[in-house]
């Protein structure tokens, strides 16, 4: 036991001293590196900004060629401009001819280390072109979620139907928040998404998929999808019907209103809640009566959303709320009183 403890004590002491030395040396080395990196960063930023401001491209490309990979990636990402900006596209064309891009393509996007692929995906999201579709597909399908998440931003630069379909499939297969994040990117594509989404809404692979597709349709607010959405209002799945109600809130019109009047009487409270919100959004005098009735719903969320929706209808809604407040139904009266007391900012907060 004594020998064992002695050996452990000596090893520990040695390790402690070595660790302390390592900490001190590392701090000094890091300070020196940080100074060098900051200087390089500042120089590169200045030259890249000059090139983006219309200055000569060659000095920027020379610096990109000579600078550390990470510094170039960070500076370009920080000062990246929206796709299509002429100055940015000129810089991208030049940057793609540099050693930096070669390293990105050869050593980062295909690396076996996920953190390198993460840097690769992030960098590619600002300099990709149609030539990089194969790489983009591989990164979007990456097994590491952080890489996948970074890679979907490449869609902004490459509106390829195959890639959009791949991202859509990846999104549907993902967990809710990841899916929502991917849907955000898909929604940003505008009309490029419509034909793909329309086809999938008409021929979904499953009810689960349809629930997600209808959610995506709600965020696109593309009128070309209205017929496909309306066709689903009687679907057997309450989540799909709820999605339809939510989507219809973006399409004011007689067909929409009729569908919503049906949906606010749905068996599922989630659908009724969604329908109440949507009726408040599409507005109109027809919305007030069913919303007023919904104030007596046995579900708290439906009552709340109906009351907020009535506030959105203006004077007509306020009149209905006042009647409910003074009425016999205690729950309706309480909710009406609550909604009437809210400031406009609080109502907007509920609608956010």
């Amino acid at each position: 036991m004594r020998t064992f403890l002695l050996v452990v004590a000596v090893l520990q002491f040695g390790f402690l001293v070595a660790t302390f030395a390592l900490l001190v040396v590392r701090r000094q080395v890091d300070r020196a590196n940080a100074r060098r990196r900051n200087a390089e960063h500042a120089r590169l930023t200045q030259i890249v900004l000059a090139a983006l401001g219309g200055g000569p491209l060659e000095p920027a490309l020379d610096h990109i060629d000579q600078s550390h990979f990470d510094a170039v990636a960070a500076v370009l990402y920080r000062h990246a401009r929206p796709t299509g900006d002429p100055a940015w596209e000129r810089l991208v064309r030049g940057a793609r001819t540099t050693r930096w891009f070669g390293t990105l393509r050869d050593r980062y996007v295909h690396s076996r280390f996920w953190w390198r692929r993460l840097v690769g995906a992030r960098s590619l999201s600002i300099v990709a072109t149609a030539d990089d579709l194969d790489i983009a597909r591989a990164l979007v399908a990456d097994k590491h979620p952080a890489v996948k998440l970074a890679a979907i931003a490449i869609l902004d630069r490459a509106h390829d139907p195959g890639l959009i379909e791949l991202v859509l499939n990846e999104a549907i297969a993902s967990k809710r928040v990841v899916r929502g994040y991917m849907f955000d990117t898909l929604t940003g594509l505008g009309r490029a998404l419509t034909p793909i989404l329309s086809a999938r809404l008409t021929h979904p692979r499953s009810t689960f998929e349809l629930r997600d597709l209808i959610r995506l349709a709600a965020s696109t607010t593309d009128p070309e999808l209205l017929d496909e959405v309306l066709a689903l209002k009687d679907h057997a799945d309450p989540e799909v019907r709820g999605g339809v109600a939510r989507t219809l809130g973006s399409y004011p019109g007689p067909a929409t209103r009729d569908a919503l009047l049906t949906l606010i009487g749905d068996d599922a409270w989630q659908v009724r809640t969604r329908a109440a919100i949507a009726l408040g959004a599409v507005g109109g005098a027809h919305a007030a009566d069913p919303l007023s009735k919904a104030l007596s719903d046995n579900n708290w969320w439906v009552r709340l959303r109906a009351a907020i929706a009535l506030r959105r209808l203006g004077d007509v809604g306020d009149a209905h709320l006042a009647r409910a407040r003074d009425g016999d139904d205690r729950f309706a009266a309480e909710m009406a009183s609550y909604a009437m007391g809210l400031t406009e900012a609080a109502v907007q907060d509920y609608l956010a």
Partner: protein
Amino acid sequence: MTDALYLFVARLVGFVDDTVIWYFLVVNSFYALLLILSIPELWKHWKITRQEDLELYLGSEALTPITILIPAHNMEASITESVAAQIGLEYPQHEVVVVNDGSSDGTMERLRGVFDLYEVPPAFPAKLPTKTVRAYYRSHREPRLLVVDKENGGKADALNAGLNAGRYPLVVAVDADTIVAHDALLRLARPFLLGENVAAAGGTIRVANGCRVENSRVVEARVPRGVLSAMQVPEYLRAFLFGRLGWNKLGGNLIVSGAFGLFQRSYLLAIGGYTSGNVVEDLDLVVRLHRHLRAERVPYRIPFVPDPVAWTEVPSDLRTHARQRERWHRGLVITMLSNLNLLFNRKFGRIGFITAPFFFFGEMLAPVLELLGYLVTMLGAALGILNVQIALLFLAVALGYQMLLSIWAVILEEATFRVYGRVGDFLRLVLYSILEPFGYRQLTVLWRLWGFWNALRGLTHWGEMRRKGFLEG
């Protein structure tokens, strides 16, 4: 003393000595394992942090909205700054629910005055029973603020009232005297973005004492000047950077800090919310959450995320420190003893076979075993049967090991987030890591033993926490 008695005592001392040494080896090997397992986890988060564009998250509707719950009892001095700071946190959609838990000072009046509150009808579903709610208020100035004014029922009761009134699917409970970093909510949402089935998630709690605070934000992290507060900095680093990160790999955390933790509201409602009367509501809550989700066979994780930071004021005087540690250990003992059937229970998987046994034997019993070690050593010395050389060597190994663990926590901090930028602070951090086993550790053992004793006596009070507040500027 007869020879037979002497022989018996000598054997007993020898047996206890061996037990303590083996206990030390096993428990500390486990700590070493946690340390090793924490490295890839820390590496993962650090690497993502460096490539993460939080502004993209801010513009996204994908992140689930969050309700921030602030239970407040007699917080007149700091409540409005705290509420304003939580409202100002960066996140796509969040609301702040302040629960005034029957304060006898001017907490409610301060809130009413600063936020221009107006009363709204009690149109909120009360899914969890709480003490009587006197009134609900909204603010003319901050649409995202809801104030619940209720009779005093303790922190858990206040949190339950907040849970009833909150409307978003995620809930973050924040102590009123905690400073949450402006981007902490966005960072805390990362496990959701990585596609994990998150039931709850915890962030890092760091020591706010000594830090430079401006507008309820820590703008410069410093190691506090006071020895007692400074000693707690490496202690917190150790507890969070590798203690809880290591558990991410070993079956999940048993603690999500009550000062800053995120939960799925539906799960909290399903388990009946916080338990009133429990002195460590966070531990109790997470244990019950594990039990519920396991029983319901819900796939879930309770990860710890290292980079979202909340700053808290730690006790700077011995009396408050003693009360805090006593309460923590008392709560641990009560929770573990009331969940004994978790131990080695196949139904609870790794929680039953790794996490719960470690908390029971490695955490709960640790001060008792340590005291036993000291007593037996003294008894051995008094009887002249102590092998002084081995005792000293063991002491050197034990203290050295403690130092190593603390230094490694500092290394992890240095290699990744490096919050303490000044060389002086770094050197003091190392110094306190080395000094911690001399005196401070023994003090905490004493407080924990006191907590153990009080738990066995059935005490359930919180004890007063005296705080000095943050220094602005």
